[in-house]
C-alpha cells in the first residue's frame, strides 16, 4: 500500500470494493442480529451485503479503467442492486463517491477523502427526514473524521482509519439518540454495516483497522426504523457544466427543485456543475442555457445500466395487456400467487428484499404492456416505487404490505379491465383483509412494554407483538381471538416451511373447534420464519 500513498487508482478502488464485500460476507449475520424485533425482518446485514455484492460485480466487469469510471460503475450497480432501506442509503453513498471522483483517472488521497464526504452528503440527501441515531449519524461521523484527516494531509489509508474511528464514536452514541435502540441495548445495524464496509475498504488497500472497536455481545438488535422516504430516481441522470453564469447556486437549486431529484449544484468561480435526476432532461438544459453556456452535457438513462442476475419465475406467456409482478417468500406462496394470476413471481420477502433490478428485469423480459407490482412487504415498497420512477406509466403499484393483502389484491384482478380500474379495485381490497402471523421469538426482546423471551411463540402484526404463548397452537388461537371481528367469515392459514402439513392441519382444526362458525382454510405457504401467516376476511 505504500505505493498508493500519493495516488488512489481505479485498481485500488476495485480492490477496496472486492475486499469489503468479502469482509461483509463474514460480518453480515452479526449485523442481522442487531435487531430490536424478535422476528427477522428486512435484515440490514443481508440487504447491505447484497447491495455491496452488486457493486462488486459491477466493478469486476471491467479489467481496468480510471477511478472515475469505476466509481461511476459502482454507483450505477449500487442503485440497481439496492435492497431494503439500508441498501438504498448505501447506494446513495456510492453515488456521492462517484460524484467526487467523476472523470478522474486517479485521485489524490484528499480527493478520495472528499469523495467519501460527498457520499455522506448524498446519503443525507436521500432521506427526506433524516433520523439521528441511524446509519446517517454514523455516516456523518465518518465524514467529519475524513474531513479532519484530509486537512492534515494524511495518506488515504490513514484518512480511512480516522474516518472509521470517528464513525465508531458516533455508532456508540446511536442508542442515546434513538430510544428504541437503547431499550434493546444495541447499536444501529446500518451504522455498524457502514463501519464494516469501510473496514473492508481499508483492508483492500492493505491496511488493517486495529483501533478501538465497540463489541456488542448483546443478541438484541436495531431495526432500521427510518420510516422516511428515500429520494427516488427519475430515469435520466442529467449533468451539465454551465460556464460564465451570473446566477446564484441557491437560485439554480430553487428553480430546478421541482423537475427532478438528487439535485447537486456545485459552483466554481464562474461556472456551475449541475447534476439532477429528472424525467425531463430537455427542460433542464433549456433552463441552464439561459444561465450561461453549456458544456460537458451528459444524459444517461439509468434503466440501461443494470446487470443481469435474478431468480424470476416467468409463468403465463400469452400476450395480455397487464401483467402482475408479485413478491413471495416461499414456494407455496409463489405457487398460490401464480395460480391466482400473478404472471411473474419474484422470490423474496421478509429477509430477502429483492432489488430494483429484479423488477426491471421482470418487466423487460415479460411481454406485457403494463405491469402491476405487488410488493407484499413494507420493505419492498420503496424498491417498487423506484421501479415506477424509472419505468413511468408502464408500472403501477398496489402497495401491499403483507401476503394476505397481496392475495386479496390478486383475487380482485381482472385482466380484461383497464389498469387504472384494476389498481383501484385491488387497492380497495387491502383494508378488507386482516393479516397477522405466528412465529417463534428468536431472541429475547423488549417490544414496546412487553418482554418477550426467546423460544416463545408470538403473534405479530406489522412487527408488533400482540400475543405470546408457550406453543404454536396457543399463540395461533390467541392471535385469531385478537384479530377476529363479528363480520368475519373466513380464516386462511398459510403454513410455513417449519411446519409439516399434518401439524398445520391439526393446529388449524383446534382453531376450527374454537370458532365453529368460521370457515378455516389451510394452505402450504412454505415461507421461512413464520409458522403461520393468518388472513382473516
Amino acid at each position: 500500500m505504500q505505493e498508493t500513498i500519493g495516488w488512489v487508482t481505479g485498481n485500488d478502488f476495485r480492490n477496496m470494493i472486492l475486499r469489503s464485500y468479502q469482509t461483509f460476507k463474514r460480518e453480515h449475520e452479526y449485523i442481522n442480529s442487531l435487531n430490536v424485533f424478535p422476528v427477522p425482518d428486512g435484515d440490514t446485514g443481508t440487504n447491505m451485503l447484497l447491495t455491496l455484492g452488486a457493486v462488486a460485480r459491477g466493478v469486476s466487469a471491467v479489467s481496468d479503467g480510471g477511478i472515475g469510471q469505476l466509481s461511476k460503475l459502482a454507483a450505477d450497480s449500487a442503485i440497481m442492486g439496492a435492497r431494503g432501506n439500508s441498501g438504498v442509503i448505501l447506494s446513495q453513498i456510492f453515488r456521492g463517491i462517484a460524484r467526487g471522483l467523476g472523470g478522474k483517472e486517479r485521485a489524490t488521497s484528499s480527493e478520495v477523502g472528499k469523495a467519501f464526504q460527498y457520499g455522506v452528503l448524498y446519503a443525507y440527501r436521500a432521506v427526506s427526514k433524516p433520523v439521528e441515531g441511524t446509519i446517517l449519524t454514523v455516516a456523518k461521523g465518518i465524514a467529519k473524521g475524513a474531513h479532519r484527516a484530509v486537512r492534515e494531509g494524511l495518506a488515504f489509508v490513514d484518512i480511512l482509519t480516522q474516518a472509521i474511528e470517528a464513525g465508531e464514536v458516533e455508532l456508540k452514541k446511536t442508542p442515546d439518540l434513538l430510544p428504541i435502540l437503547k431499550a434493546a441495548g444495541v447499536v444501529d445495524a446500518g451504522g455498524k454495516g457502514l463501519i464494516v464496509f469501510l473496514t473492508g475498504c481499508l483492508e483492500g488497500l492493505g491496511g488493517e483497522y486495529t483501533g478501538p472497536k465497540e463489541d456488542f455481545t448483546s443478541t438484541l438488535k436495531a431495526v432500521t426504523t427510518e420510516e422516511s422516504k428515500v429520494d427516488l430516481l427519475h430515469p435520466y441522470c442529467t449533468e451539465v457544466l454551465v460556464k460564465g453564469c451570473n446566477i446564484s447556486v441557491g437560485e439554480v437549486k430553487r428553480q430546478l427543485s421541482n423537475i427532478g431529484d438528487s439535485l447537486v449544484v456545485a459552483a466554481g468561480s464562474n461556472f456551475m456543475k449541475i447534476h439532477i435526476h429528472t424525467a425531463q432532461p430537455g427542460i433542464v438544459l433549456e433552463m441552464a442555457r439561459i444561465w450561461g453556456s453549456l458544456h460537458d452535457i451528459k444524459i444517461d438513462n439509468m434503466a440501461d445500466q443494470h446487470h443481469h442476475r435474478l431468480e424470476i419465475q416467468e409463468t403465463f406467456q400469452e400476450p395480455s395487456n397487464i401483467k402482475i409482478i408479485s413478491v413471495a417468500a416461499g414456494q407455496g406462496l409463489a405457487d398460490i400467487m401464480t395460480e391466482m394470476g400473478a404472471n411473474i413471481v419474484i422470490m423474496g420477502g421478509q429477509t430477502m428484499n429483492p432489488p430494483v433490478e429484479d423488477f426491471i428485469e421482470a418487466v423487460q423480459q415479460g411481454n406485457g404492456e403494463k405491469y402491476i407490482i405487488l410488493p407484499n412487504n413494507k420493505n419492498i415498497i420503496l424498491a417498487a416505487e423506484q421501479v415506477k420512477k424509472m419505468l413511468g406509466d408502464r408500472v403501477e403499484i398496489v402497495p401491499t404490505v403483507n401476503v394476505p393483502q397481496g392475495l386479496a389484491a390478486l383475487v380482485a384482478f381482472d385482466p380484461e379491465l383497464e389498469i387504472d380500474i384494476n389498481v383501484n379495485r385491488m387497492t380497495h381490497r387491502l383494508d378488507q383483509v386482516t393479516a397477522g402471523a405466528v412465529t417463534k421469538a428468536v431472541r429475547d426482546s423488549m417490544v414496546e412494554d412487553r418482554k418477550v423471551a426467546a423460544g416463545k411463540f408470538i403473534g405479530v402484526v406489522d412487527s408488533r407483538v400482540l400475543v405470546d404463548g408457550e406453543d404454536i397452537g396457543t399463540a395461533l388461537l390467541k392471535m385469531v381471538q385478537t384479530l377476529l371481528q363479528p363480520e368475519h367469515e373466513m380464516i386462511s392459514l398459510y403454513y410455513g416451511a417449519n411446519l409439516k402439513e399434518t401439524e398445520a392441519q391439526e393446529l388449524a382444526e383446534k382453531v376450527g373447534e374454537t370458532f365453529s362458525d368460521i370457515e378455516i382454510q389451510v394452505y402450504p405457504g412454505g415461507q421461512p420464519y413464520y409458522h403461520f401467516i393468518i388472513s382473516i376476511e
Partner: protein
Amino acid sequence: MSEIHIVVDSCAQVSREMIEMYPNLHTVSLKVRIGDKEWAEENLSTAELFANAKEMKRHPQTSQPAPGDFIAICKPLVDEGNDIIIITVSGGLSGTVQGARTVANSLDGKRIHVVDSGTASIGMVQVTKAALEMAAAGMKVLEIVTKLEAMIKATHTFILVDTLEYLYKGGRIGGAAALFGTILQIRPVLHLVEGKVAVLDKVRTKQRAITRILEEVQKYPNLEYIGIGMVEAPAEGEKIAARLQELYPNTSILPAAIGSALGAHLGEGMIGIVIQEKI
C-alpha cells in the same frame, strides 16, 4: 282465425298454472344427461340431479331441445296459419336459440319469430307473460316482438355460484375468467353480458359476494320486478330477498324457479337474481 302462439323452453320453468291458463302457451324441454342416462328437464329435479351426479360420479351435461320437438309443436300451428313467438334461454348459455332459428327458417321464417331472452328462469317467465298478455290484447306479432326486445334490454341477470367448476366443465365460462385460480376459495360474482356469463367481480366470502351483487342491483333505482332463485341454498336466498325488499319496498320480489338444466351449469348453492328496469 289466426292466433299468436308462444313457445318457451324449459329453462323458464313456467308454472303448471300458467300453462293451464293460456292454451296458446307451449313448452319444449332441454335435456339433462348424466353418463348414459338422459332426462327431459322437467322430469329431473335439481335435488335428483346432484344426487345422481354424485352417485354416478359424472358431471351432468345438457342438450338443447331436439329440432323435432320444436317442429312437433310449430308445424301444426303454422299449417293452421298461426304466428309463433319462440322465447329461448339466453343464447350465451344454450344453443336452444340457434336450434329454434333453424327450425323457424325451415318451416316459415315469416311466421315464426325467435326471441333470445338473454336471461333465464323468472326473466324468461316475465317475457313470456308479457307476450301472452299483449297477444291477448290483440297486438300484432311484430309489435309484440319489438316490445319484448325492449324488455329484454332492460333485464339484468346476476349469478352467485359456490364454485366455477360447473360453469367451466359445462363450457359456459372460458377465456380469462376460467384462468383464475381454484387454489384459494374464490367466490365469483357473475352476470350475463349480452347473454353470456361474465365475471363481474371476485371475492373470497359469501357475504362479500352478496354485498357486491346488491351494490350492482342498486345501480338501477326503478325496477319493474326483482326475481330471485337458488339451487339448494334456501337460507341465503331468503336473506337476500329480505334485503332486497328493504331496498325496494315497492317492487315485487318474485321467486325464480331453477330447473336441472341451469342447475347442471351453475352447481349447488347457486343464487340468481334477475331484475328488470321500468320501461
